[in-house]
C-alpha cells in the first residue's frame, strides 16, 4: 500500500517498491475486472435460475413419466394401467445384494392388485449385470408373486452398437423372450445361452452380452425365491422408503 506522502516522489526512482505493490491504474483495472466479472456471474446465474424455475416442474414430470413407463413395461399386462403415483410411491428400499449386483441398498417397486393396499401382485427389481462386454448392464426385472417373469428391460448399457445392443427392446425383441419363464422353466441347465447348452439365443457376433443378461435374470429369480416373504409377504414394512431405511432387517 503506497502512502499518500509518496505522491510527490518521482515514481521512476522507486522501482523495487513498484514491483512489490501494483500501481494505482493497475489496481483500478483489477478492481474493475473483478467487479465486472462478479456482476456478470450474478446476471448469468440469474438467467440460469430463471430457466430452471420455468422448467423444473416439467422436468420432474418427465422424469416420473419416464420411470413409470419403464416400470409398466416390465409389469404384467393386467397391471399396466396402474396409477402412476401409486406405482412410484410403492418404492421401498432393500439391503445390498451381491446376487443382484447391488453393492448398496437399492430401491425396488411393488405393484398391488386393484382395490387392495398390500396384496402385492408383482415386484420390480433393479438388477446390475456386472459382466457385460463393456461394463455394467442395468436391468429392470419384473417378477410376479407366483415366481414368473413378467418382463425384463435394459435401462443402461455400453455394449457394442449393432451387436450387443440388441438387448435393447427398441433394437430387437430378444429381451421380451424372458417373459413367462420361471426358475423351473427352463430349469437350472436351461438358464444359459444356447452356445453354453441353454435355452436362450445368443446374437451373431455377441455372446458375452446375452450371457451376462441371462445370468443376471437367473440370479434375480433365485433372489426372489429366497426373499419371497420379504418381497410379497405381509411384512410390517410400509411402502414409505424413508421408514424402510430405518427398519432394515438383515
Amino acid at each position, binding site marked *: 500500500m503506497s502512502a499518500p506522502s509518496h505522491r510527490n516522489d518521482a515514481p521512476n526512482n522507486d522501482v523495487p517498491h513498484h514491483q512489490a505493490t501494483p500501481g494505482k491504474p493497475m489496481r483500478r483495472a483489477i478492481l474493475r475486472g473483478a467487479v465486472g*466479472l462478479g456482476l456478470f456471474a450474478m446476471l448469468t446465474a440469474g*438467467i*440460469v435460475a430463471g430457466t430452471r424455475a420455468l422448467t423444473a416442474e416439467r*422436468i420432474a414430470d418427465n422424469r416420473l413419466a419416464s420411470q413409470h413407463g419403464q416400470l409398466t413395461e416390465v409389469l404384467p399386462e393386467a397391471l399396466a394401467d396402474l396409477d402412476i403415483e401409486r406405482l412410484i410411491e410403492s418404492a421401498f428400499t432393500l439391503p445390498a445384494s451381491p446376487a443382484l449386483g447391488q453393492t448398496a441398498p437399492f430401491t425396488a417397486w411393488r405393484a398391488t392388485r386393484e382395490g387392495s393396499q398390500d396384496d402385492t401382485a408383482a415386484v420390480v427389481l433393479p438388477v446390475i449385470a456386472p459382466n457385460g462386454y463393456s461394463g455394467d448392464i442395468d436391468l429392470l426385472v419384473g417378477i410376479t408373486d407366483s415366481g414368473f417373469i413378467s418382463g425384463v428391460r435394459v435401462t443402461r448399457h455400453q455394449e457394442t*452398437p449393432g451387436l450387443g445392443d440388441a438387448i435393447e427392446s427398441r433394437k430387437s425383441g430378444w429381451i421380451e423372450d424372458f417373459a413367462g419363464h420361471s426358475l423351473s422353466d427352463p430349469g437350472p441347465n436351461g438358464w444359459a445361452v444356447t452356445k453354453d447348452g441353454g435355452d436362450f439365443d445368443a446374437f451373431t457376433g455377441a455372446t458375452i452380452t446375452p450371457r451376462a443378461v441371462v445370468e443376471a435374470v437367473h440370479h434375480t429369480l433365485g433372489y426372489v425365491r429366497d426373499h419371497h416373504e420379504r418381497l410379497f409377504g405381509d411384512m410390517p414394512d410400509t411402502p414409505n422408503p424413508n421408514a424402510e431405511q430405518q427398519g432394515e432387517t438383515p
Partner: protein
Amino acid sequence: MSQFNELARNGLWANNPALVQLLGLCPLLAVSGSVVNALGLGLATLLVLVGSNVSVSLIRHHVPDTVRLPAFVMIIAAFVTCADLLMQAYTYELHQILGIFIPLIVTNCAILGRADGFAAKNPVLPAATDGLMMGLGFAAVLVVLGAVRELFGQGTLFTQMDLLLGPVAANWGITVFPDYDFLFLVLPPGAFFATGLLIALKNLIDDRQARLRATHLPQSPTESRRVRVTGTIR
C-alpha cells in the same frame, strides 16, 4: 446485404466450423450416429451460438479486455445450461440419449472462437447472423454425417425422429436396406472416416469451382488468385 451474403457463405461453406476450421470435432464425431441425434445436438449448438454471439456483442464495450475470456465463457456456460434444461423439459428422451454431450457444448471451441473472434468486434446484427450461419453450418455437417452413418451403418434413415419432433414424426423412419448393418460406420472410426470423406468432397467442389473460374477469366494472373482449398480461418 452483401455483408449478410458474406457471413452466410463463410458459415455455411467457405469457413465452415466443422469442415474447414475443424472445431467441435468431439461432439461431431460422438453423436453423429443417427439423424435424430445429430439434429438434436446441432440445434442445441445453434441456439447456444446465436445466444452467446448476441450477448457477447451487446457487452463488447463494457467488458475489460483482461477478463473478456472468463466473461464469455460464463455467458456460454449459462446458455448451455439453459439449453440443457430446455431439452430436459421438452425432449426428455433425446436428452437421455445425448447425455453428457449437451453440457459439453460449453467446450465446443467453435462457440468461444466465434465469440472472441467475431462477436466481440462487431455490432449485434452481424454477430447474430454470424452465429446463425456458423450454427447452421455446423448443424448441417452433423446432420449429413448422421444421415450417412445411419444409412450405411444401420440401413435406416430418420428413425426415432419422434424423440425430437413429437408424435408427428413417429413413422418417419425408413428402412432402406433391411437386415443390414456395417459396424465400422456405427463405431467412432466410421465417424472419422466419414468426416474425412466429407472434407475431401468439399475440397473437390472448391477445386473444381476454382478451375472453372480460372478458365472463365483467362487473362487474370491465375497464380496469385489460386484458391487455398483448405480455406482461410478468420
